[in-house]
């Protein structure tokens, strides 16, 4: 997941430019010139309404994506390899229906090729372009979980519980151990809470983080 520590965002939009550059291969520069950079980006920096707080906005790759319901061509689909919600740019006809279904406004318009664009987390590449470009460390690609192979006994309970086939037993030189596919893992925590040896750690949503969030909410209230 790409997460953002929005307090640190100053709205420089380096992330947007990096995203566009990374995906520029699709855009015909001769048609659009400088503006092509903006038309190739798949995420954007928004400003909180009525205020001045900028924040980067990427597709959340939701569990129940309303954009999937909206797509009239089937171009919007869930990629079985990574669990991400992606748009088949060849199939998209630019009807704009999905744009108005995304509550977070993450879907971008490509008016040159008349289709929509979506964050694809730079597919398998780590770190994604936006994360790398940010000068203020606002964006994080946080591994949500990891397995401590010294503690793991290879019982396979986690594999049987995972709803997303994200954790599997693999052969290592320490014997059979669990490995997490970071693209499929959504950080639900079922495996971590069930592990008889406490070998799985949630990196982001720890108890400390939860306390932090609650404190912040209480400050604002």
């Amino acid at each position, binding site marked *: 997941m790409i997460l953002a520590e929005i307090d640190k965002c100053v709205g420089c939009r380096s992330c947007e430019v990096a995203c566009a550059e990374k995906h520029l291969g699709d855009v015909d520069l001769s048609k659009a010139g400088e503006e092509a950079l903006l038309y190739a980006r798949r995420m954007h920096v928004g400003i909180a309404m*009525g205020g001045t707080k900028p924040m980067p906005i990427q597709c959340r790759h939701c569990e129940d994506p309303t954009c999937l*319901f909206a797509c*009239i061509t*089937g171009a919007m689909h869930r990629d079985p390899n990574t669990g991400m919600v992606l748009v088949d740019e060849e199939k998209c006809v630019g*009807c704009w229906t999905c744009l108005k279904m995304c509550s977070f406004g993450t879907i971008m318009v490509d008016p040159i090729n008349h289709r929509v664009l979506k964050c694809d987390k730079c597919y398998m590449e780590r770190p994604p372009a936006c994360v790398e470009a940010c000068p203020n460390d606002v964006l994080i690609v946080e591994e949500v979980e990891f397995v401590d192979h010294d503690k793991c006994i290879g019982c396979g309970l986690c594999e049987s519980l995972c709803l997303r086939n994200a954790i599997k037993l693999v052969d290592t030189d320490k014997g059979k151990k669990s490995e997490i596919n970071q693209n499929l893992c959504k950080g639900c925590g079922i495996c971590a809470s069930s592990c008889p040896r406490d070998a799985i750690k949630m990196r982001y949503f720890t108890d400390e983080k939860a306390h932090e969030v609650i404190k912040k909410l209480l400050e604002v209230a």
Partner: protein
Amino acid sequence: MRYVIVGAGPAGINAIEAIRKIDPEGEIINVSDEPYLPYSKPVMPHYIGGHIPFEGVFFRPKDFYRDYEVTPILGDGMIEVDPDRSLIILKSGRRVPYDKLLIATGGKPRKMNVDGVNLKGIYYLTSLDYTKQIVKDLPEVKRALVLGGGPLGLKACLSLSHHGIDVKILISSAQVMSQALDPDSAKILEKKLEQSAVEMRLKTSVVAFEGNGRVKYAILDNGERLETDLVIIGKGVRPEFPYLDPRKIRVNVGIIVNNYMETSAHNVYAAGDVAESYDLLTGGSNTVAVWPRASEQGHYAGMNMAGFRKPYPGAHRMNSLDFEGVSCIVMGDVKTIKTGYTVITQKDPKRNIYQRIILENGRIRGAAIIGRIVNVGGINRFIRKGVPVQKVKDSLLEDKATFIY
């Protein structure tokens, strides 16, 4: 458990996907009166215009039925529902018993009742059969008429025009998109039409068609005779359910369903264009034939059928189309203005930009965003959730505005 899903449109297909998420074992049968894999009716104008190949009309992969372990019965439509004996009867006479039934048969085109409407060359633009026929006819067509000023009619006339055909669009109302748009918003699209090669006639109706086997003339209400090689009728759809006994299942304009997509008959559900359900804006019930709503309803129907009881929060009308580069996105109700409503307008006619938001008690009732695509997702969400926006109403249409809620 046997689930019988009648209809292979977005409602039916989303129901299948929702059921499989919850129940990997149950038997699923998908009945359709058309002999095609699930295809998208709103995409027909794009196929006619040559923007997509034939394969592009199918909105799920070829292996969909195999991947989801569904038994398809295509080309054999349902002609009767027998809720007392929990079975349906198909056109072929085949009987299909069900444990749970979903009726998602969609809407049928509003028919025109004039002389000559059955002549060859006159088509309703919804079904794939008609569309294939239109595409076959196209090389011989020099003049065409499109009847209807809704999104489908507008898209169709542009598609035909792109083939170099002389197209006239005849609209009975005084404006285009008379159901969705207010007159001022409609003017932007009308201006675009006037600038295009399509001839637009408002307040014009056809009273008869003439021809010898194939249509040759359309007779207008003002007496004029228009020569034509092809007629496309796009006057909207309405639910039709001849397979139902209204004494056994409650119907009104559509098949009435509650928040769990249940009809009044035990174990029978309905979703999509055929269903009549709660409208968030009017507070009443109606049928709104738009794709996202059909998909969502199918999804919720599937969940409830499989035992995961979750109420559907309701929907409002919405439409979006791209009109020769001018995007037009309408959400909710922008036509009704009562005292006490606030109307926010922002326009730039030179750039074909027109934006209008209607507020009632500080909540957005409707929005028409034409010419630029900004914040539509957020605005739509505010309409759905009835979010009070009084404090931020001045920045709703700002360029970089984002909705953090």
